[in-house]
């Protein structure tokens, strides 16, 4: 089994890299591991080099629309019909 996807924060500005989300707008596909990003990569917001990011284990704020979908969307089961 693959290791859990991780999150990294830029110490220069707080920019978040979430392995689950990747950065498609910067050519990094969702699911791309931090280790697979080149060492020459830098924060797209403040240009802080990759080595000055730190891994964080911080949950997303509740009700944020940015929550990553880690798996296929599963529909809730249909409520069973009760007839009295």
């Amino acid at each position, binding site marked *: 089994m693959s290791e859990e996807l991780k*999150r990294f*924060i*830029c*110490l*220069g*500005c*707080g*920019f*978040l890299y979430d392995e689950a989300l990747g950065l498609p707008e910067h050519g990094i596909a969702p699911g791309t591991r931090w280790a697979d990003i080149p060492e020459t990569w830098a924060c797209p*917001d*403040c240009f802080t080099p990759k080595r*000055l990011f*730190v891994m*964080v284990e*911080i*949950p*997303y*704020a*509740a009700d*944020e629309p*940015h929550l990553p979908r880690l798996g296929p969307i599963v529909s809730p089961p249909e409520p069973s019909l009760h007839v009295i």
Partner: protein
Amino acid sequence: MRAEARGYNKLQSTGPLASYISGHPEAVLIRHSSFNFGPYQAGRAGFGRLRVFGDEVFSGPGCGYNMHRHHNFIICAFVLQGELTHINTVGNVDRLTSGDYYAFSAGSGGKHCEVNLKNDDMHAIYMWFLPDQLLLPPSYRRSHFDALANRNQLVTLVGNADGALRVSQDVTVSRLSSDAVMALDYVPRSASHGVYVFVLEGEVHCDDVALARRDSRGIWGAERINLRTGPQETDLMIVETAP
């Protein structure tokens, strides 16, 4: 940590940093960093949730940081001297003078500009905290520390206390301004919390360690920390943080 052991940056508004540092001509921003920051990297990554502790002076009219983007970090500024103009994308244009302080939570994304529009130097302490949740809605709050009214009392500026600014993190920032010999025991919330003591002015004995102006000390695992101030004007800040 002795004052001279901190990181030192002299940033100028002309040359390669012209787009980052505001002010003209030749405004100078002096930054002493207790922890790793920007080009200064001495291996002190931070202290618990506190990741930046900057002792900064903006010299020359217009000196400061141009509008730039942040996420997530809770940025606090405590103005010691002069006037700071703070502009952010939450919608605030604020002017802060001695004793004023703010907490700007960048959350899901926000920009800010920090600038000294006056001729006199502006001194401030900047702290950055990691938040307890990612991508929170951005927010800005400000308050004031009245050194005269709170003479010889430890006051909570940030944290869960009456009159303090609440932030989304298990941290507390307190300040003591004294003009008499004082002894007090600082009791952290738990033995797992760390306490970072920073002397703004005067001299403080922290347990058995003498700290002079701009010296600091970080302590983990203490049940209580004994602080003793001298008879002269003393001003100190205490940051308590979860690990």
